[in-house]
């Protein structure tokens, strides 16, 4: 078993009186696809926002371990540094593309930091130094590579807002990959996709893991995606972890079944006692 890339310890997030995530601990291992699942309102997106720096957790520690051994404590980093230095990229549940910019420009914006230093913090770029021209050509090549992987090459010069829903999801993933992340966090990547698009997405995610060695952490409702591609599943309910293991283990877990499907009236007390409510 490989080492952990992301370790979440005793993560707690309070919004006033509301306890959204309560003392959550789990690990995502390098090279794995880890899924976080749970019913609506279980706190999945809150966990994601804590990992990617959009929320500051009330308590707890989130450690990101790079392949070269460097570690970052994500709860202490500003959100843009989490992408820039800790190499954690994310997508959003409600797609957030730059809709007025072209598909290609979206992928170039994602390469902002390397391009910024290549342009000499704009000074060399304004003067038209060749170093920036080369860097931009490389950036366009990289964008073209990801466009090819997502089947969007033909639409590279169209505004991102013109794309249908499925390709927009794919473009958001491609954009996140252009930041060269070690850990890619996907917030419901299959939401709103039809079964065929779901299959294409699964292929893309497998490709990302295999060819780029990027570990994935995903929130998902679509069980076909979760069960098919994930190596490790964490189940949340009311901000508490109720199960953690392989997809097969989780599927058989009575607590998970109870959380998702409910139980007969006669069994409520027994199950509640088991779950600890």
């Amino acid at each position, binding site marked *: 078993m490989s080492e952990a890339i992301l370790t979440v310890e005793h993560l707690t997030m309070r919004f006033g009186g509301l306890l959204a995530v309560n003392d959550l601990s789990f690990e995502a291992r390098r090279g794995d696809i880890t899924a976080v699942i749970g019913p609506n309102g279980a706190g999945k997106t809150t966990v994601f926002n804590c990992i*990617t*720096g*959009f929320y500051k957790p009330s308590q707890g520690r989130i450690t990101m371990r790079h392949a070269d051994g460097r570690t970052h404590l994500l709860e202490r980093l500003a*959100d*843009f*540094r*989490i*992408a*820039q230095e800790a190499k954690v*990229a*994310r997508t*959003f549940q409600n797609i*957030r*593309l*730059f*809709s*007025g*910019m*072209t598909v*290609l*420009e979206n992928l*170039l*914006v*994602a*390469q*902002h*930091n390397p*391009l*910024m230093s290549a*342009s000499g*913090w*704009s000074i060399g*770029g*304004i003067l*038209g130094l060749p170093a*920036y021209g080369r860097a*931009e050509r490389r950036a*366009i090549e990289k*964008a*073209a590579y990801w*466009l090819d992987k997502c089947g969007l*090459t033909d639409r*590279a*010069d*169209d*505004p*991102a*807002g*013109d794309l249908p829903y499925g390709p927009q999801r794919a473009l958001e993933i491609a*954009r*996140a990959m252009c*930041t060269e992340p070690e850990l890619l966090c996907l917030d419901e990547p299959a939401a709103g996709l039809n079964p065929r698009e779901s299959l294409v997405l699964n292929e893309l995610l497998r490709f990302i893991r295999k060819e780029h060695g990027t570990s994935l952490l995903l929130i998902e409702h679509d069980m076909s995606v979760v069960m098919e591609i994930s190596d490790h599943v964490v189940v949340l309910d009311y901000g508490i972890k109720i199960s953690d293991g392989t997809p097969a283990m989780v599927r058989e877990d009575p607590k998970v079944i109870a959380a998702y499907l409910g139980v007969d009236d006669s069994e409520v007390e027994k199950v509640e006692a088991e779950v600890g409510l």
Partner: protein
Amino acid sequence: MTSATDPNFARPEPPSPVARAAREALFAAIIALGVFGPLLAFRTTQDMQNRLIVETRYGLIAIVVLLVFAGRFLLSLWFARARPEAGPTLGARLSGLVPRSVRDVVRSGLPPAALVALFVYPMMIMSLTGGSGALKWIDNFGIQILIYVMLAWGLNIVVGLAGLLDLGYVAFYAVGAYAYALIATKVIPATFPGLGVWAFWICLPISGILAAFWGVLLGFPVLRLRGDYLAIVTLAFGEIIRLVLINWTAFSNGYEGISTIPRPSFFGVPFNASDTGFAATFGLEFSPVYRTIFLYYVIVCLALLTAWVSNRLRKLPVGRAWEALREDEIACRSLGINTVNTKLTAFAIGAMFGGFAGSFFAARQGFISPESFTFMESAVILAIVVLGGMGSLVGTALAAVAMIGGTELLRELDWLKAIFGRDFDPAQYRMLIFGLAMVAIMVWKPRGFVSTRMPSAFLKNRRAVSADHVKEGQG
């Protein structure tokens, strides 16, 4: 035009596009000479003894013919470059694709044509009106409009590209103007009086840097604000600067303002009637119009610098980050873009151009007071940016010509007095017409004159992005 298909023609390949464009331009120029020659070259006027004489205006006709030549040359060249394999004659090409090419010509042919017009404008006015009349046209229409073009292009970086609604842009204009006025009237005479003639050229960069510094200073507290809140704070900032200038009389001389600001020199040669002045040095007869023409070219260069820099920045990562910020700030942060720095650079660079324009304004006027930097100025500049289409340089320039040139033209409409009576002053209706025009534009073109956005990079071909997708930013 059919030489390429002529069997007797020696070379099988068509002539080079430049040669062809030059020939077409020559034909156009000859036709223009024939058409305009009799109309423009001769004019009948009365001389001092009230006799009817014929006045010849060969300079004017030369300019017109040259303009036609240059315009036709650029147009032909552009067509040859855009569609080398298309039909043999320009006419055939034109008739084939009228709607598309008209739009394209406007898009790519307008800037070079406008540029040529910009540079020959003072000469044209001089030959049209003669010495004293030219002053008004170059100053009120040329320089005045160009100052606003430059301000609008500067504000366009903040509002149009980065999507940050700034209602206090005039503050940076004031900082630039007062920086030049105070340094040139107090600091330089007290320290290096010998540098007096160079004052404008020394203070221009200093004013820009100071304005940029104030831009950053304003940027810091307002970074967390968006939309309406940002607009209110920037509005207040503009007022604070103005009120400080009014009340801190020891510093800025309050309402009385600062007068006798040194005028710019021709790179060290002053514009005066002395023996070392510009006219004497170049063997010309002294006339105040030379300074005005020089100021005109200075502001042309400053405005073009603004356009060049902002166009260049748009294609750099920082410009793309500005536009991305306007589209979606949260997505920017998820991609590792430092939004604080990105916003601050937008504020600083926008403010810097405001500062340049301010120091030019002070140099042109020779006198400044807080009255020149009221909220109305900010509103007009912002209206130009919005009217032009946020983010578009061509649209913004057109809007500045329409708004500032339009209000100046109202002063020229004295003949209206014949219709509405002696007390009628069209300039009094300026704001009314201004408001009506804004309402009309909102109905007719809600996203401004040029609402499409040109992408900063492309894989196969560059296509404009329709305004439906482009966001306006939330502050």
